[in-house]
């Protein structure tokens, strides 16, 4: 081959036909070595096996069983049923409270002095559940004494805008928040009381309520 530095065209070292012929023969036979045998095939086999081995271990170890919800490769997939996220009635009640009750009774449950009675530490809240269910269903008007203070206001009836379980949840929330500690209210109780007082249309007064319930 002449040097390419001054020659401006590349020379071929072999014809295309011979390249194909020679290589076709080579494809099917390993080259003969003068002495011994070539270690390459064994080395190559070794390399391939090692890579497949480690690759598979890596794949199995870090793929979290191909789980669609696992983003951290070190996390093991959960076995068994999926975790059930439980929501307590008090949490649901808090949502209702935040939408409806907070305007008057405030987020702290303290109400506004002289205007809206508090619920925190209120004997009404932790007392008879029948009374407070009636208050929420039909509203309450006029003078009422809560925690030793007098209030004279009107609370709207919520029986038509809230369902039984919502009323039960919000009352449960009120009875277990801000240091209050009273048993929860069940939706069945609310339903029963709603049915019993279905004919009541006007709000209650404090005097009427004190006569009902224990």
């Amino acid at each position, binding site marked *: *081959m002449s*040097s*390419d*530095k*001054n*020659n*401006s*065209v*590349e*020379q*071929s*070292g*072999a*014809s*295309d*036909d*011979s*390249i*194909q*012929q*020679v*290589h*076709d*023969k*080579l*494809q*099917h*036979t*390993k*080259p*003969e070595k003068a002495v011994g045998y*070539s270690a*390459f*095939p064994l080395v*190559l086999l070794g*390399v*391939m096996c090692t*890579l*497949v081995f*480690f*690759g*598979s271990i*890596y*794949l199995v170890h*870090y*793929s*979290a*069983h*191909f*789980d*669609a*919800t*696992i*983003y*951290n*490769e070190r*996390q093991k997939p959960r076995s068994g049923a999926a975790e059930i996220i439980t929501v307590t009635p008090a949490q649901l009640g808090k949502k209702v409270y935040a939408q409806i009750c907070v305007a008057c009774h405030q987020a702290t449950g303290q109400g506004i002095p002289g205007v809206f009675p508090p619920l925190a530490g209120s004997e009404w809240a932790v007392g008879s559940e029948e009374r407070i269910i009636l208050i929420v269903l039909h509203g309450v008007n006029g003078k009422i004494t809560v925690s030793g203070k007098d209030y004279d206001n009107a609370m709207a009836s919520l029986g038509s805008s809230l369902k039984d379980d919502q009323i039960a949840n919000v009352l449960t929330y009120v009875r277990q928040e801000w240091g209050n500690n009273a048993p929860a209210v069940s939706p069945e109780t609310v339903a029963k009381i709603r049915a019993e007082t279905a004919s009541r249309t006007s709000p209650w007064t404090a005097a009427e309520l004190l006569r009902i319930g224990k």
Partner: protein
Amino acid sequence: MARDRAEQQEIDASAKWPVLVFFGSALLWLIIGGALQLAASIQLHTPAFLADCEWFTHGRIAPAAQNALVYGWGMNAGFAFALWLMARLSAAALRSAGWLMVAAVFWNLGVFLGLAGILGGYSTSYELLEMPSFASLLLLGSYLMIGVWAVTTFSVRNTEKVYASQWYILGAAFWFPWLFLVARLMLSTSPVNGVVQSIVNVWYVNGLLNLWFVPLALAAAYYFLPKILGKPIYDYYVAVIGFWWFAICSACSAGSRLIGGPVPAWVATLGSAASMLVIAAVVIIGVNLLGTLCGNFAKAQKSTTLRFIILSIVGFMLAAALNFALSVRSFAEMAQFTFIPELRDWLLLYACFSTAMFGAAYFFLPRVTGKVWRAPVLISTHYAATALGVLALTVGLVVAGWKQGHLLNLSDVNFATITNEITPWLTYRSVALMLLSIGHLAFLINFVWIACPCCSPCTTAATIKNPPEMEAHQA
């Protein structure tokens, strides 16, 4: 042997116009894309450059440059090389070259419209699929014409044996349209939901680089080494294993581009495992190619084509090493969003593929045109610029990326500091890109002289000697 020679001349003559049209347009896009890429690079360290003009804002120029280089330069050069080589190895002349030239026109029209769409603000924002739909329809249509031609040339072949280069070209010819069509369908026509889009996108980019560009570069290496050295490929019997292993493993390694991303862990793990397995194929290909070079290095250094092919092999190895590193989660944690993945893609596209195409062109252009290169000094300039540029860019981007990644992971370092730290390296990168462009211009000048009918003197048959028959045993 005279019959052999005439056949070869006939093949080369039949391929002349398609090859010249494809390669000429490839070079044109290389210059244009190179200029856009340089502008984008300059904007990173000098943000005010061209910032006033909406068409050249960084977010539009950067993808435009990538698309020009991939679809304009890369695909066109690939077509020129693949058509010529397939004709040669099938010992069948390229028939109906007119259709190929029509396809070339539509392909280039598609690229032009696509780039205009990106610069005009119609980008789809999917990496390497930014061209709007009308352009990609044109591209797909033209490709089908060209791909069909490569395959039919193969099917009417006059040779019994099928050589390694032909496997790679056939594979690439088949893989690209499917990758492109499926990706476009799943992203633009009937978009998949949520992050599956990102998965499709990385599957496409990975496929394009590993199943189109790398196979063509390897086809060139497998052909030119024995062709010019006159010696068979070392340990050729493992080449077929290397081909299939490389194809299967690199096709599945897309997920490693999404390490840490909003995809389930298995996606990235699968990609990383596949990237690990690819090493075996890289070893096989390395043994084949480097083994052939071993002992013949001096001879190879004298040949322009083989000097470029050696660069291509080096680029391939570097890219494979970087790809493996990036598939390791702890390295990816640092290097992920820096210049290092960009470097890995650039190494595949430029250092592996483009250098192989340059080498191939220095071989086939004189043969298809029947002329000689007019200015050997420009050839040396091209080679020197390419080798230096590849070295400079590799080193520069590794250092810049390392610094950037290290600082990104320190939560108390703000972005101004990071930008200040890497700006000198970005300037250095622009300089390296300019160096590469000088090489391209040198090549362009030589190309114009050799392609232009009135310029170079014709060669006589004696200048290109009859090649000897290859000996079967290895030295």
